[in-house]
């Protein structure tokens, strides 16, 4: 096994492109755990730690936000002054694991692994985020919704790495909320719901919802959002939207809960997430 510590994205791309069994090393919190368990043994590790261009959170002139792939969960959790719905990403980062895991894990590593039980994927889908990639053929951006392809499978092609996650401007008057239900604090979610909502005169003018741990990729259902739009998010609206979302779910049975139990959690967590997001906008 070889170990590389390039200082530019281009060098990292060449190293990855030259060896199809090479892997990026970000925080190591998943990759090293898998190596320790003899589940993977890459032929080479390409540490991204020394690539300054992969760090940092920056707002762009149009009100969008760019989060470098090597930004740790702690840096996202502590980011100050995020606008409206963008604060959802910080709330989500605070829900990840324990302090040591938030100090180590990165947003690029979290989504690069493609685990549907992780917290960021649902939040990124609810925020209409894009994933910026760089590979031997140059740069491209993939909507978060298309980036997650299947269980532990993403749109990353051989030789490509994630350079950043970008969020479009927060919808006007929009706020977000992340509801995570886990067996104990710091565990992966049994079910999670990310919601971005804008209310106007007590009615929902904008809504995006995505579920985590409910299938091989984050679950989004445009029909459920259409059912919520224009409503006051009353119990019957939430129940009807939850029914649509449940039809789109394909949950597993595992130690964190049976598929049936997960389906029971969708409606109450959806209600909590929508109302928490709406409440952040205050009475309008």
């Amino acid at each position, binding site marked *: 096994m*070889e170990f590389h510590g390039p200082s530019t994205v281009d060098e990292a791309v060449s190293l990855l492109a030259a060896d199809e069994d090479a892997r990026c*090393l970000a925080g190591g*919190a998943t990759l090293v755990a898998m190596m320790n368990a003899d589940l993977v043994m890459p032929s080479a590790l390409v540490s991204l730690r020394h690539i300054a261009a992969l760090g940092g959170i920056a707002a762009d002139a149009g009100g969008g936000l760019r989060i470098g792939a090597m930004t740790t969960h702690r840096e996202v959790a502590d980011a100050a002054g995020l606008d409206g719905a963008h604060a959802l990403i910080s709330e989500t980062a605070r829900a990840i694991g324990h*302090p*040591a895991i938030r100090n180590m894990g990165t947003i690029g590593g979290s989504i690069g692994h493609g685990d549907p039980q992780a917290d960021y994927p649902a939040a990124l889908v609810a925020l209409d985020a894009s994933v910026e990639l760089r590979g031997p053929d140059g740069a491209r951006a993939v909507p978060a919704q298309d980036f997650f392809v299947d269980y532990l499978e993403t749109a990353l092609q051989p030789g490509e790495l994630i350079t950043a996650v970008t969020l479009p401007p927060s919808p006007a008057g929009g706020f977000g909320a992340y509801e995570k239900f886990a067996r104990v604090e*710091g565990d992966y979610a049994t079910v999670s719901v990310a919601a971005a909502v804008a209310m106007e005169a007590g009615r929902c003018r904008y809504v995006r919802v995505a579920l985590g741990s409910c299938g091989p990729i984050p679950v989004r259902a445009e029909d459920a959002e259409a059912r919520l739009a224009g409503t006051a998010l009353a119990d019957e609206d939430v129940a009807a939207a939850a029914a649509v979302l449940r039809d789109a779910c394909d949950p597993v049975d595992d130690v964190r809960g049976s598929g049936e139990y997960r389906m029971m959690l969708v409606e109450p967590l959806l209600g909590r997430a929508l109302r928490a997001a709406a409440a952040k906008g205050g009475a309008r």
Partner: protein
Amino acid sequence: MSEAIPISLTVNGRTHRLFVQPWHTLLQVLREQISLTGSKRGCNQGVCGACSVMIDGAVMRGCLTLAADAAGREIVTVEGLAVGGALSPVQQALLDHGAVQCGFCMPGMAVAATALLADNPSPSDAEIRDGLSGNLCRCSGYVKVVEAVRSASAGGAS
């Protein structure tokens, strides 16, 4: 076996020149190459916190950090907490409060608590619990650990 990589590792203020394999964890190298056996191997999966060390001031998992990737960063282990041979306030408080049972989790607890108080000198009880949430104690002595950390905090003269 691939060729070992030369690295220099700064642990508790001392720099060590070592040869490591790319897959060697920091925990493994601390214990087996520099004989710092205070950091414990519980799960080797990031779950238990027995291997907690500080890297550049932040608490991290020794078992999930590759030694080659830790080169050039400031590492502090439980052996580096004592000042001039005297236990640190956190260590002394853990002792005074009877927080130590079998002791296996204690090096990790002491490191995590030290990192917590460095960031937040007067944490609330909820913040103490959150700060130590990644450290499991199978003897289950959490109450006394929280009391000890509270007493070692700026607001906690007991």
